[in-house]
């Protein structure tokens, strides 16, 4: 119980810090506008692209696009948020070394910071879906017992976000500030390979299969299946939601083991090479 209490305590502190950093620079209204402008803009780009080509004809592709985009936001923001915490706290605030030598585990610390991003992203994603519902006539045709599958799938998929976030955070412990663009650009990789805005089988051959092994792909298509009745990646079309959930859990476990080991290895190497408090900004 002591361990759980400490975990929750550490998590709560780092979440509070993350929330303050994200939101404390301006008043609540401006913060809301700022939080919505970016994701809504990227959603609208996709919607406009879609509407131009389909010449305003709404069909079953639009809801898939909207849900895919709404969920991809989580991938981009949580991944980047956790990874960028390392750079920001190390180079700008110069507090990473103090966190490192404190009893707070870096693991919990990053989870808390990532969770702050997760919550902020939830607002944006929710708004995108509501917008689609009100203005674009996007209608949900959920499966039976969606109310059971939705929270479970959301939870399990969300875990995969943090797992991937740890991977990039681990990388950032080892590289300079300039190399952090790797993390920023990684969102592009996920956009491409997870079927967020088009089915992964749009790509020929091997590329079309890579996405199956990324948890976010299963997550996004599983959520589509739950809310719309079906996904749009051919690999998952005939797969039951239970099977998709099992796949997601297994992939999460595998990734977690590998990335957990990698993360600890990165910390060890960073400590060995004196990179915990390196300053590459000036």
């Amino acid at each position, binding site marked *: 119980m002591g361990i759980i209490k400490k975990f929750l305590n550490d998590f709560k502190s780092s979440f509070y810090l993350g929330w303050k950093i994200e939101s404390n620079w301006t008043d609540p209204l401006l913060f809301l506008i700022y939080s919505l402008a970016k994701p809504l803009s990227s959603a609208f780009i996709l919607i406009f692209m879609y509407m131009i080509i389909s010449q305003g004809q709404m069909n079953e592709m639009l809801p898939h696009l909207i849900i895919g985009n709404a969920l991809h936001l989580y991938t981009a923001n949580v991944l980047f948020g956790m990874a960028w915490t390392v750079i920001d706290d190390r180079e700008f605030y110069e507090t990473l070394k103090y966190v490192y030598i404190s009893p707070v585990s870096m693991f919990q610390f990053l989870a808390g910071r990532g969770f702050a991003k997760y919550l902020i992203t939830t607002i944006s994603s929710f708004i995108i879906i509501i917008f689609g519902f009100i203005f674009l006539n996007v209608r949900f045709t959920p499966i039976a017992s969606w109310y059971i599958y939705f929270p479970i799938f959301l939870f399990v998929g969300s875990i995969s976000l943090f797992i991937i976030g740890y991977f990039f955070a681990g990388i950032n412990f080892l590289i300079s500030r300039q190399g952090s663009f790797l993390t920023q650009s990684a969102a592009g990789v996920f956009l491409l390979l997870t079927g967020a805005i088009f089915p992964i089988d749009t790509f020929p051959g091997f590329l079309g299969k890579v996405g199956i092994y990324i948890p976010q792909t299963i997550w996004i298509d599983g959520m589509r299946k739950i809310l719309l009745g079906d996904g749009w990646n051919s690999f998952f079309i005939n797969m039951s939601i239970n099977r998709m959930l099992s796949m997601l859990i297994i992939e999460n476990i595998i990734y977690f083991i590998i990335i957990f080991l990698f993360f600890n290895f990165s910390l060890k190497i960073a400590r060995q090479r004196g990179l915990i408090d390196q*300053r*590459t*900004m*000036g």
Partner: protein
Amino acid sequence: MDDSISIKTENLGRIYKKERGVLEALKNININVNRGEIFGLLGPNGAGKTTLIKILTTLLLPSSGKAYVLGYDVETETLKIREKINMVSGGEWAGYGILTVRENLWMFSQFYGIPTKKAKREIDKYLEIFGLEEDANTKISKLSTGMRQKMNIIRGILSNPEVLFLDEPTLGLDVQIARTVRSFIKVWMKEKEGRTILLTTHYLNEADELCNRIAIIDNGEIHALDTPQGLKKILKNKIMYSVELERESYLNLKELPYTTKFTVNPLKDGKIEVKFQIQDENKIVDIFNYLKNNGFNLVSFRKREPTLEDVFIEIVGKEFKEDE
């Protein structure tokens, strides 16, 4: 303005707006700094030293009063001032980590229009003087604090300024490097007539060693301005003693009768050093008896000349902590 004066302020004031109320960082500052002198500004953190330097270096506007550097108004003639001054701050991290020492210095020299050939010559000369020639091609992100500060000082003098502002230049440096910096300052001043340095510091020995005149500043006001010797003469009628005492760890010295002022500094092994002033030297035995009766054992004592620290305490009314 008189040509023999480098810096002049007339009722200079600066106010900062805070969330609640205002902070008066400078209040009616009137100083004249002569050409060719090293002028020291001594004071604790928050005294107003850096605010004054920022106004004089045109980084900050005064809220009231006037300031002139080399005869030019800091508010309206900034370009003329900037051509003739430079500034080096303690703990400075300016520059680009990706560039080497030589490259950083060259880059800054270009902002003063120094021809590249001349800049390279001067850079090489100063790198040698400061013992940095082996690190000339090291990226500055790899430099230690001391090496970085040496590079900063070279940056400051490369443009051959008529007035050099040094804002705590030896802050955080080890004894050896601080000594090197101070030696260089003296040499640099002698090299060319008419150079002026305005130095802020809260290292008393540094001010004592380097400055022709010192202004003691606290809470935005100048409390005294004179040569170091002149300042110490303020205490000519005060007899200063310094005693080293042994005590039990729970004992604290809260009062000391017959003294006008006293300070307590902890030493190693539980000992303490007490410095005090008395007006009647006959009372010294009574003081020793008082200490003994209150559990303090006398280890050593000596009579001493007033230091700048004593002057500071006398003028400002509080102890000057060098690690403040």
